[in-house]
């Protein structure tokens, strides 16, 4: 299957269009005349996806008695105090701080180390690269419950038990990040990098100055998913953390959830507050999912 060869750079001015509708400027004008039919698909889809989140919001402002009915009903009055209660009845701020530290450290570690490894696996031919890649993937193939005891023993050996380090260090790289970036590195045309190498740039320099700027969206993806996973990780923190002042948000939120009774409004309020930073990050990070006009000149 032939792939259409790209035209040389600077031959085509950036069009500013980001969608498939490319017939002509007539089409552009036509689109501005009325709403796109895609809304018909996106609106129900979004509602379906957002439904549980909406339910979480509704539950968080209900009373406990209202949540103990089935089927659930809308609350009679909005109980805003649950949010205040969730914040004050427990060391929420401490949990938030711990989780942020762990998540940010993991994100930084992943973006840096997975880029290096992914790039090498994608571009460099070195002895053992296939084995290394397979071994990295292999660590994804065993469920955590099976390895959690040896992992605890290893972490204990490093003296990290009951510290935030135990949550950060094992997660400084993820096979997901390495694999994803490898795939994306391979989609970039290699000619630019070769040109840079001929011009005398080091491999690291090429990676940082030439390649990574083209990888904004995949890097944002790795950052977001790493953030998400570290933020919501429950079992490993449960195993390795014992001191209340080292607890992360999921661990803390579990204290709202009893064996027989669950303080649903409080739990939902707490969960919403804990998920809010990630939503903000996601909304902000979307700018890297929009093709920037400047970069289109550099691409091959």
């Amino acid at each position, binding site marked *: 299957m032939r792939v259409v060869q790209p035209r040389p750079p600077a031959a085509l001015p950036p069009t500013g269009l980001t969608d498939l509708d490319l017939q002509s400027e007539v089409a552009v004008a036509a689109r501005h005349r009325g709403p796109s039919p895609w809304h018909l698909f996106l609106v129900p889809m979004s509602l379906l996806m957002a439904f549980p989140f909406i339910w979480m919001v509704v539950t968080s402002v209900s009373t406990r*008695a209202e949540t103990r009915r089935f089927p659930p009903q809308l609350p009679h009055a909005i109980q805003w105090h649950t949010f205040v209660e969730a914040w004050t009845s427990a060391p929420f701020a401490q949990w938030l701080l711990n989780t942020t530290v762990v998540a940010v450290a993991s994100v930084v570690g992943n973006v840096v180390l997975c880029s290096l490894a992914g790039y090498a696996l994608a571009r460099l031919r070195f002895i053992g690269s296939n*084995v290394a890649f397979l071994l990295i993937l292999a660590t994804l193939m065993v469920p955590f419950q099976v390895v959690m005891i040896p992992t605890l023993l290893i972490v204990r050996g490093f003296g990290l038990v009951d510290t935030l380090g135990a949550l950060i260090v094992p997660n400084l790289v993820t096979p997901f990040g390495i694999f994803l970036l490898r795939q994306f590195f391979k989609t970039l045309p290699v000619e630019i990098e070769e040109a840079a190498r001929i011009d005398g740039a080091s491999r690291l320099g090429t990676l940082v100055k030439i390649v990574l700027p083209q990888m904004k969206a995949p890097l944002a993806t790795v950052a977001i998913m790493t953030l998400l996973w570290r933020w919501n990780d429950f*079992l490993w923190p*449960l195993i390795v953390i014992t001191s209340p002042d080292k607890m992360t948000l999921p661990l803390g939120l*579990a204290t709202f*959830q009893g*064996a*027989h*009774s669950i303080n649903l409004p409080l739990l939902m309020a707490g969960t919403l507050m804990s998920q809010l930073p990630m939503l903000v990050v996601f909304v902000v990070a979307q700018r890297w999912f929009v093709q920037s006009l400047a970069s289109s000149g550099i691409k091959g």
Partner: protein
Amino acid sequence: MSARRSLILVVAVLVAAAAGLLSACGGSDESAQPAGSGSPVALPSPGGGGSVVLWHGYTDVERAATDVFVARYNATDPGFKVDAVFAGNNDYALQKLLTALAGGKAPDIAYQYGSSMANLATSPKVVDLSPIMAQTPSFDWNDFFPAERLATTVNGKVIGVPALVDNLALVYNKKLFDQASVAYPTKDWTWTDFRDAAKKLTDSGAKQFGWAYVNDGSEDTVWRFLALLWQANGDLLNADNTKSALDSPAGIKAMQLLYDMSVTDKSVYLDKGDGSYLNVFNSGKIAMLWTGPWDISSINADVQYGVEILPADVSHATIAGPDNYVVLDNGPQQVANAWAFIQWFCSPEVHLAYATATGHLPIRKSETELPAYKAYLAKYPADEVFVANLDNVTKARPNIPTYPKISAALGQAVQSVLLGRAQPEQAIQAASQQIDSILAAGQ
């Protein structure tokens, strides 16, 4: 390097590493060293300035109460500190404890479900409290209800003290009974009365059910069935726990009742195991529950409910599900300190105060004779029936390591009958045979 060569290399690396590890660790056979039961134990006096770590899964009101009482104890200046730590609830508590035991740093006291006792007893780190109790007669082990003592005793060793005792009783919605003109349940109710009432209280058009049953195949499904089995004077296993006694007229009768009510009468709301039965009860759509004190505090204020003992076939037998505090061996001083705290925490006055704060049932008979007991009953009137019902707990689940597997087999049988996928006799026979093979395979 070709993909195939890579694969061979990977496998070789893994095999070599595994072989290396196998030769280093292979054949390690740390057999359990049972703490000698009955031999006197020399414990130092409590003190030493360290801290006793207590792992629990309490949340909400219970957690607040636990923190208050622990603080109260620490304020008496016992010479050490007690640290109550939230260590996950449900299955997580066991996972965390097992990992900690295998990974080297266990707490001093851990709250664990009764169903884990038989297996926990095999650990050399779990302390056998019977010699210690023998040396502290003031603890008065016999003051605890028989159900609890049965649940914490494994092969003659006492491996825990009760944290919580409960039992199953009949909780019913008075308004639904009034609306259907059915008389409230009484102490003399039989299975027939129960079934009839459930039928009259079921209205499929209004999606109202006479009874609810937890149908997720777990221990929650099984223990309700065991209450029925014991009411019919049946047994799960024979006296020395070597063979199944399920395949009996009593067993079939108990299963038949479930079939009749769920499949024939369609008067049973089958709960998925997520506790939605309580929410449906709160919405006035279920008339009767077989449940325990833990659900009482979650009943909404606008529901008028009553509590009665379970109906009888041959007896009004019920079942208790005690949870326990297990003491782990982190050295004699730690054990001594932990035991000092437990003695205080489980003493009659202290525990009654704790029960008054949490709604738990008393764990000692003598608590019911204290003056403060009246105030406790005034606060939790439903508990009066639950406490009296403890006398109906004459049997306990077999405290053997293979019980979880037996429970799973029985759970499947009960589920299949409730869903109408098996006939009672067939299900009982199949379960009984499975139980026999589980017992034969051993642990």
